[in-house]
């Protein structure tokens, strides 16, 4: 069962990444990236990294992709000539069904039941918040502080870019 879920999630992750690159409407690309993030969270969960799985959704799908979406919506990106002339529900459903069928095929052809190495039972403990906190705030205290500096630098950088003044002579459009 777990092998099947793995194959499904893995194929979904790869396929949504591909769809992200191929689709020419930028908002669709962003949404496929969200799908990719969510399937990655599922893969983390299969590796028993429970904390990481939730963080993957909270930070990547919930924060970073919102910024992407914002920028896309603000920039007024024209809908380019699309590979699929128009993105429709039926294509999306077909996409999902295709993934399900394809992963089943992979599963049955390659006798994948023995493919996955067993995740060590201790991982259930190692993937919890408590374990992550224990290591992060003792062994990795220095990287933790460097992250704080990096984040502050990021704030300043964003402000610099947003503040950038256009030269008086240059065209304003």
């Amino acid at each position, binding site marked *: 069962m777990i092998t099947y879920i793995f194959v499904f999630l893995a194929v979904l992750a790869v396929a949504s990444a591909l769809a992200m690159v191929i689709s020419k409407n930028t908002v669709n690309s962003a949404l496929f990236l969200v799908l990719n993030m969510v399937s990655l969270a599922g893969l983390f969960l299969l590796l028993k990294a429970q904390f990481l799985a939730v963080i993957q959704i909270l930070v990547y799908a919930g924060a*970073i992709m919102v910024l992407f979406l914002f920028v896309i919506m603000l920039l007024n990106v024209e809908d380019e000539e699309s590979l699929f002339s128009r993105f429709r529900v039926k294509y999306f459903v077909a996409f999902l069904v295709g993934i399900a069928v394809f992963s089943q095929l992979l599963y049955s052809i390659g006798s994948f039941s023995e493919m996955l190495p067993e995740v060590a039972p201790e991982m259930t403990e190692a993937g919890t918040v408590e374990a992550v906190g224990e290591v992060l705030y003792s062994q990795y205290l220095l990287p933790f502080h460097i992250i704080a500096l990096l984040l502050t630098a990021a704030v*300043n950088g964003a402000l610099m870019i947003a503040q950038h003044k256009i030269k008086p002579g240059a065209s304003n459009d």
Partner: protein
Amino acid sequence: MFENYLPIAILAGVAVVLAILLMTLSRVLGPYRPNKTKLDPYESGMDPVGDAANRYSISFYLVAIAFIVFDVEVVFVYPWAVSYLDFGPGTLVSMIIFILELYVGLIYLIKKGALDWDLKKGMFN
């Protein structure tokens, strides 16, 4: 461990099915008589002018960036809050330093007026 996530997976399935069901139900039951005026975007009864995608304030973008930075801060706070009683006082001090470091960034943003949305005071007006 996995069986603890099974109810969530089931719930996700039920939620998706329920949402799609409600939507298709109205598709099936409702009438469908489109005409040009009905399908135009609503602009208070006038003929729509131009496209919706326009140039909007860059403040939205700055808010999103600032959100990511402080969201990461919040995420770092959680594993600490779970087990900080087991650590020595040094970890408490280093968490205080971490939060204050980021607080400096917040003060910088506020002082620069990046989070001001008032017409006169903001840095982009």
